[in-house]
């Protein structure tokens, strides 16, 4: 009899089940199940509800078969068995059993392709059946198929609105099932197929069979739901795993990779990308702004790339917030599609090309620099060529072996043009070259950086042998060795001529001056004697002057004396008719001092001489003597109580090697000349000697020096002393 030991229902409230009424309502009227049981209504209603609650409570699909068998056993059936189909192998084998010996259970095993086997047929027809005594089992058994079925289409089928959902098909029993079809074409869920086998007793009625059927269907409902849920769960798990794997792949990429949605928001990004789009902990206001800016730049670049389709990549400059540096990326984006071909977003890989771009910029800038340097060099070279061509002197450049490597046109006249076709060089040019080569070798191997030397060369243009003034310099390489020598050959002939003319003119001037002097002297001399007579007469008249006429007489006397002084001085200075010729200035100084020595000694003037070697100067010796004595006497007069005088001579170089100077310095430590008079002392009739001075001395001195084309100047400090400086030109011809 039936077992009334019913299990307590669990505490969870039972939700109303759409208890397979549809299932029952349909097609169960088979030949085998013709009669409806009576009297089992009440119990029948209660039992399935309890069983339903237990079955609904099952949390795992593999509990269902056990629970089902328990319930079947609770209904009083002695034995029950569930066989399950394996779609891969095609075999139908026992899966769960209740008091069914193993060996016997295994006898019922069959395959999906065994069409004639009753169990297979039940499965394929998806209809329950009763098997009477068969070879498989001695007792009659009730077979009920258990197939994955649902009332509603799977979510995926709903999306694409096909009715091709496996679950629904199975539930509708639209067609015979086939093993191959047990995969939903939409959601890809794999269905299951099993058969419940219950051993029947003789007393079992149609109603019992119905009850059994309901129970199995109830179990199947739960099972289907759980199966689906499990399937979903597993799919989600799979997806999670896949996502995790993808995430690992992404993280392992050193380049920033971003997965974005259609709004260009980042769904997923590699760690490398986080630096640019994710706020680090403790981010400051401006960091957040930077990240925002990055986001916008990225979004805009992405839009352009995806929309235009022409430019699959773009350069992008983003701020690395953590490092605070700008990075240049080359972003490559590709759209991503869902399984149904719908555009779902994009994936972007960004390559850090900062260094590449910077290198590129530097390369460009270096290239530009090179170009501009080339340009400068070219200009310099052109300028140099222009200068060389226009210097007007032969220029020769030699290498470190003193061989000629470069010549200007004028040098080529002298030495011959090695590059000319049929390099004909005249004998004279060869000679020139020998002379030059000797000089060049000497200079190149010498220790000096510069050299000036005379070179005698034949100039074919003027058909003359000319003494050139060769000036050479050395050009060194980075290591300090001689790389090149440059020589300029200067023909000083013209210069010498000019200097010669100048000297001649000067001599003329001096002589004219002398002539003027002579004229002046003559005039003065003419005046002299009358003056002497006048003066003497005044002296003689002294005693005859009446007292009241004395003032007038005194005026007469003093003015006459003044005129006499002037005449005397003029005569004193213009008294030479000597020739102008080369003389050594030191000798003149010594002569003058000899003459004045006594006077100087008496005046307690100590004279110190500092005379260096001097070349001869073309001068009028006596005039210069006048100059010297005038200045020396002035110096003495400035030291009434005695003092020191220094006379110094030096030979000074001039602007070119033909000209130089003889400098004479006469210094005293006397009273000095007041500043406001210093300019004026060289003017006529300016004197510091009061009544005694004529004021002509320095004027005439200046005149003499000017005629000699010399220079005269004075420096003085009142109370300290005075220095007169005379420069006389020397010309080497």
């Amino acid at each position: 009899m039936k077992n009334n030991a019913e299990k307590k229902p669990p505490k969870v409230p039972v939700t109303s089940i759409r208890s397979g009424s549809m299932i029952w309502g349909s097609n169960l009227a088979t030949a085998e199940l013709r009669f409806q049981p009576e009297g089992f209504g009440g119990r029948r209603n209660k039992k399935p509800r309890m069983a339903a609650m237990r079955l609904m409570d099952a949390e795992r699909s593999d509990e269902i078969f056990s629970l089902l068998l328990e319930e079947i056993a609770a209904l009083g059936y002695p034995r029950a068995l569930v066989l399950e189909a394996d779609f891969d192998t095609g075999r139908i084998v026992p899966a769960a059993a209740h008091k069914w010996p193993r060996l016997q259970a295994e006898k019922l095993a069959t395959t999906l392709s065994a069409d004639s086997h009753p169990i297979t047929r039940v499965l394929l027809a998806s209809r329950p059946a009763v098997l009477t005594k068969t070879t498989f089992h001695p007792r009659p058994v009730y077979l009920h198929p258990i197939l994955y079925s649902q009332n509603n289409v799977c979510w995926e089928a709903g999306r694409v609105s096909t009715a091709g959902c496996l679950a629904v098909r199975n539930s509708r029993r639209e067609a015979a099932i086939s093993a191959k079809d047990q995969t939903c074409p939409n959601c890809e869920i794999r269905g299951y197929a099993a058969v419940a086998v219950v051993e029947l007793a003789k007393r079992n009625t149609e109603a019992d069979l119905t009850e059994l059927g309901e129970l199995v269907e109830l179990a199947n409902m739960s099972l289907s739901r759980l199966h689906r849920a499990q399937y979903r769960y597993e799919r989600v798990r799979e997806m999670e795993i896949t996502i995790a794997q993808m995430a690992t792949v992404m993280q392992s990429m050193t380049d920033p990779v971003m997965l974005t949605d259609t709004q260009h928001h980042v769904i997923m990004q590699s760690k490398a990308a986080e630096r640019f789009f994710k706020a680090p902990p403790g981010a400051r206001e401006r960091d957040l702004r930077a990240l925002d800016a990055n986001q916008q730049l990225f979004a805009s670049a992405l839009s352009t790339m995806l929309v235009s389709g022409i430019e699959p990549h773009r350069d992008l400059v983003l701020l690395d917030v953590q490092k605070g540096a700008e990075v240049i990326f080359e972003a490559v984006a590709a759209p991503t599609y869902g399984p149904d071909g719908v555009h779902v977003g994009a994936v972007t890989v960004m390559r850090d090309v900062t260094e590449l771009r910077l290198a590129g910029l530097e390369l460009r800038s270096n290239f530009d620099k090179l170009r501009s340097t080339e340009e400068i060099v070219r200009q310099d070279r052109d300028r140099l060529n222009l200068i060389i061509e226009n210097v007007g002197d032969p220029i020769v450049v030699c290498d470190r072996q003193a061989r000629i490597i470069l010549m200007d046109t004028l040098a080529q006249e002298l030495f011959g043009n090695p590059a000319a076709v049929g390099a004909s060089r005249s004998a004279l040019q060869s000679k020139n070259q020998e002379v030059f080569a000797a000089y060049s070798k000497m200079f190149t191997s010498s220790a000096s950086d510069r050299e000036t030397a005379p070179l005698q060369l034949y100039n074919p243009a003027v058909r003359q042998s000319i003494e050139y003034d060769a000036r050479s310099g050395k050009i060194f390489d980075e290591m300090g060795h001689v790389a090149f020598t440059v020589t300029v050959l200067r023909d000083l002939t013209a210069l010498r001529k000019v200097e010669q003319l100048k000297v001649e003119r000067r001599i003329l001037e001096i002589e004219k001056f002398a002539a003027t002097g002579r004229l002046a002297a003559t005039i003065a001399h003419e005046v002299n004697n009358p003056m002497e007579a006048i003066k003497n007469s005044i002296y003689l008249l002294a005693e005859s002057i009446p007292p009241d006429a004395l003032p007038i007489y005194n005026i007469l006397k003093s003015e006459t004396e003044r005129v006499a002084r002037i005449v005397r001085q003029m005569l004193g200075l213009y008294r030479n008719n000597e020739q102008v010729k080369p003389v050594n200035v030191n000798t003149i100084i010594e002569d003058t001092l000899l003459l004045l020595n006594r006077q100087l000694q008496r005046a307690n003037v100590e004279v110190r001489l500092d005379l260096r070697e001097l070349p001869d100067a073309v001068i009028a010796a006596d005039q210069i003597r006048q100059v010297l004595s005038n200045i020396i006497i002035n110096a003495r007069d400035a030291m009434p109580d005695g003092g020191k005088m220094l006379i110094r001579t030096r030979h000074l170089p001039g602007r070119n090697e033909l000209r130089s100077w003889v400098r004479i310095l006469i210094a005293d430590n006397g009273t000095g000349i007041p500043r406001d008079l210093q300019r004026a002392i060289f003017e006529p009739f300016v004197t510091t000697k009061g009544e005694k001075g004529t004021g002509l001395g320095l004027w005439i001195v200046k005149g003499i020096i000017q005629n000699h084309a010399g220079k005269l100047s004075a420096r003085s400090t009142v109370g300290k002393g005075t220095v007169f400086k005379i420069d006389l030109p020397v010309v080497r011809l």
Partner: protein
Amino acid sequence: MTDLKLPNCERPTVTPDGKYRILVVDDESSVLLTYRLILEHQGYEVVACGKSTEAIALLQNQRFDTVLCDYSLEEQHTGFEVIAAARRHDPAIPAALLTGYATKETADEAAAKNIAIMIKPTVTEEFLATTSKMLKRDGYGR
């Protein structure tokens, strides 16, 4: 150019044998005259000559204590000749050249010959002082 600064001293005008005799030679008549007057006023006996030839002739016959002679007589610088003539008769006779200018050569020559030089126009006091020194034969060097 000789420049003698003499202390104030008595100018001798009379020798034990009488007055000093001075020969003055200058071709400018007014100059000659005034020199004579000045010297005579000083108390000397003066013989004045206007020509070098005259002076040389005089020197042959007469004795003088000193000779003052212009350098450029008749435009010919014959002053030296006159003095040379005087020295022929009295080698130690003091002599002076009166001149408007003196070149170095002239000065050298005068120094060599122990002849004083007085630059015209003269300062009368210096003229007289030099003359006095010469008469005393008292180192009237340069």
